[in-house]
């Protein structure tokens, strides 16, 4: 293959790691050396020539090529079979509704969360049960990290450079989840977003840190889901009033009760859509009274429509612990789902 990237050299692995760290080309952790052979293997897996353009980041006018994305995927530890998911995530991130520049540079400090759908979950060994939200396995960790390293190296999204996050959160090291499609009778999140169950896909979301909820004291769907809605309402009060794509991660224990009662994902979405809303006056309870003004009776729903509630089946088999993952900036940045192996611009 003919690569456009400059070839670098080092006498040994320690010197190579030092060079990459000194240049600011890592996330601070050791990386896998992106040799021509390893990068070529990734590109071959996705049937992509090095010069293939995935897109152009619109604010900075920076071209994102398959070659550079593959180099960063190798550095993150990806095996060739992980690369199509990385490419798909980039395609989704470059879609205008995602608002890539804002999401990666805002003081708000979100992370790019990637969610895997379809057969690739099994093929890659990506886990979706125990410890579903992080620290699980190679596929999830490497795919998530590949996106972060790509942002660092292709768009200068380093803390203090393009990344202006006040706090950020641990998901910024790399954050990738998979849906537990095997242990639910529900539609998958991808199916709800127009992707057939037989196809692999990736959803990306500009995501704040997960907020864990717990309810092990009821089997009533309304009571279980009220706990999730309460967390969304809390976010409307003390973080952001804007409606947008909140992700609800619902574990097996809660799903068992919901599904036994005949509740579908659409039922869950409708219930949370109705319950997750506050009045502007509630801002006075959390120190934001200065901006209530004469609009205290105005109602602010967390969602513009029920389908904006993203419901994900994931989590270990026991425990009434779910999570609410809020959006970074409401509907200013939307979750985007893209199928693997399909060029959305072709």
């Amino acid at each position, binding site marked *: 293959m003919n*690569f456009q*990237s*400059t*070839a*670098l*050299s*080092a*006498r*040994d*692995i320690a*010197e*190579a790691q030092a060079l*990459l760290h000194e*240049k600011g*080309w890592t996330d601070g952790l050791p990386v896998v*050396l*992106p*040799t*021509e052979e390893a*990068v070529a293997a990734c590109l071959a897996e996705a049937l992509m020539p090095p010069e293939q353009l995935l897109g152009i980041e*619109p*604010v*900075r*006018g*920076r071209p994102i090529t398959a*070659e*550079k994305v593959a*180099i*960063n995927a190798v*550095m993150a530890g990806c095996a060739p079979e992980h690369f199509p998911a990385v490419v798909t995530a980039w395609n989704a991130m470059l879609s205008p509704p995602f*608002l890539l*520049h*804002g*999401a990666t*540079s*805002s*003081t*708000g400090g979100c992370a790019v969360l990637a969610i895997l759908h379809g057969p690739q979950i099994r093929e890659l060994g990506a886990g979706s049960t125990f410890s579903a939200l992080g620290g699980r396995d190679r596929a999830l960790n490497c795919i998530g990290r590949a996106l972060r*390293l790509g942002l660092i*190296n*292709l*768009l*200068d999204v380093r803390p203090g450079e393009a990344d*202006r996050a006040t706090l950020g959160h641990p998901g910024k090291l790399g954050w990738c989840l998979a849906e537990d499609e095997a242990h639910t009778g529900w539609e998958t999140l991808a199916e709800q977003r127009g992707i057939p169950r037989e196809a692999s896909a990736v959803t990306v979301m500009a995501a704040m840190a997960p907020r864990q909820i717990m309810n092990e004291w009821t089997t009533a769907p309304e009571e279980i889901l009220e706990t999730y809605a309460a967390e969304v309402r809390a976010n409307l009060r003390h973080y952001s009033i804007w409606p947008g794509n909140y992700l609800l991660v619902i574990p097996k224990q809660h799903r068992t009760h919901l599904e036994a009662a005949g509740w579908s994902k659409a039922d869950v979405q409708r219930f949370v859509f109705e319950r997750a809303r506050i009045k502007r006056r509630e801002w006075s309870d959390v120190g934001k009274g200065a*901006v209530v003004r004469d609009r205290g009776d105005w109602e602010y729903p967390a969602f513009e429509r029920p389908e904006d509630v993203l419901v994900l089946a994931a989590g270990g088999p026991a425990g009434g612990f779910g999570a609410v993952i809020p959006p970074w*900036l409401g509907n*200013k*940045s939307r979750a985007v789902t893209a199928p693997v192996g399909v060029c959305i611009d072709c």
Partner: protein
Amino acid sequence: MTLRFLNPSHEAEALAFTPAPRPISLAGATVGFISNGKEGTKGFFTHLEALLREHLGVAEVHWRTKGNYSAPAEGAILDEATHWDFAITGLGD
């Protein structure tokens, strides 16, 4: 043994744009403010407008607000900005 590997960075050498020449004076100038729309910008720009008019003789000040905190300014604002002598934007919160 020498290890060989590929540069992971964008390797772009030039900026996508060049800064406009800096004005020598703002006396009689038309200045534009492009706010990101956040609450805190109102007090800041109000004070700044007073300073510009009082101390630097600025003739006109145009206030414009982006539709999205975190997205570039809309095309209409950028078109209008071509008629300004000076613009102030890129402020945080």
